[in-house]
């Protein structure tokens, strides 16, 4: 359940950047290949924000799809699940998109 530590990291990052500000909304980007489950972050969020400047804040999550490029056949593809196999059968791929885990913006009251 690393989502607890991840959510704590979100609170820490936001309060570190905007100390003393009342945060009303947090917008996250959790890529499909980031290894983090958005629903688990949602589950932890209220728990972790309690008693902080983020308490009561809304949580908005966008989940960009994964995008990979095969190093063997050169084609780009959207992986089907977490196993990054090119339709040609190769596992030798590079990830172009979908690994990000970031705080895009917040709303401050």
């Amino acid at each position, binding site marked *: 359940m690393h989502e607890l530590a991840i959510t704590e990291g979100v609170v*820490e990052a936001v309060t570190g950047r905007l100390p003393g500000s009342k945060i009303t909304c947090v917008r996250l980007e959790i890529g499909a290949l980031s290894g983090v489950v958005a629903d688990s972050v949602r589950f932890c969020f209220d728990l972790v924000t309690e008693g902080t400047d983020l308490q009561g804040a809304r949580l908005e999550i966008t989940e960009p799809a994964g995008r990979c490029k095969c190093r063997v056949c050169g084609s780009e593809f959207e992986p089907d699940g977490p196993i990054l196999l090119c339709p040609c059968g190769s596992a030798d791929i590079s990830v172009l998109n979908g690994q990000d885990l970031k705080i895009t913006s917040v*709303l401050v009251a």
Partner: protein
Amino acid sequence: MCATCGCSGGAVLQLLPAAHDHRHSGDREHVSSHDHSHDHVSSREHEHDHDHGQDDPGHIHIQGPADNERTVILQQKVLAKNDEIAERTRSWLRARGVLAVNLMSSPGAGKTTLLERTARELAGKLRLSVIEGDQETALDGRRIQAAGAAVVQINTGAGCHLDAAMVAEGLRALDPPSGSIVVIENVGNLVCPALFDLGEEAKVVISSVTEGADKPVKYPNMFRQADLVLVNKTDLLPYVDFDVRSHAADLRRVSPTALMVQLSATTGEGIQAWYDWLRRRAPAPHE
């Protein structure tokens, strides 16, 4: 629970020196994966709403007020702080000439047994020390200490993985000599440790023949990053339904480059390949 400030979630660190080491045994220090409220992190950022000529990463950009709320663009990686600490650790290790290996597996795959045997058999040949991560107890740390290696035991409490701050603190306590190897035995877990860069040079994953052979495709995030996969407990192969070839094929589906070595940490069969791998990577001591 942190003894200093009473906060929860803080990891506890305990130095267990090698038998020949003259440092005090059982010194307990506190290390935390998070900043305490009494740790004042200096911040150069300030809020403002005027225009800038150029982008300054230290500045926070605020878009004009809409009603009584305003949007603050952060575009900040959630793990940025962990990754920064890990990068600093990596530079420090390289400058000192120390190889750090992040050893991961599910609970019970044989991480501690492997390290016990390694510490015993490489004593006098390779300087090895261990950062031992467990949720609770110093039991594993004591086992490795008894085998002759210096150990820092980190108890993560509620945490299911080690993070870069814990390892940085552990390395400060361990003070590994130039030319030595530090093995970081992560908390037994194939999910969470995959996300946290600790500043290591290489990742080693153990899968044992008492587990399913399909572990690589079930936990692809973990196996994709592995430089070396050790298939442990091969002495039990006659008694279990573990297909080594299908395990190798599943590993290839998630990582085209990871090396796979079969061994038994209990009998020592095949373990030479692991020692050779360590020796090839061990840095030359700096003058």
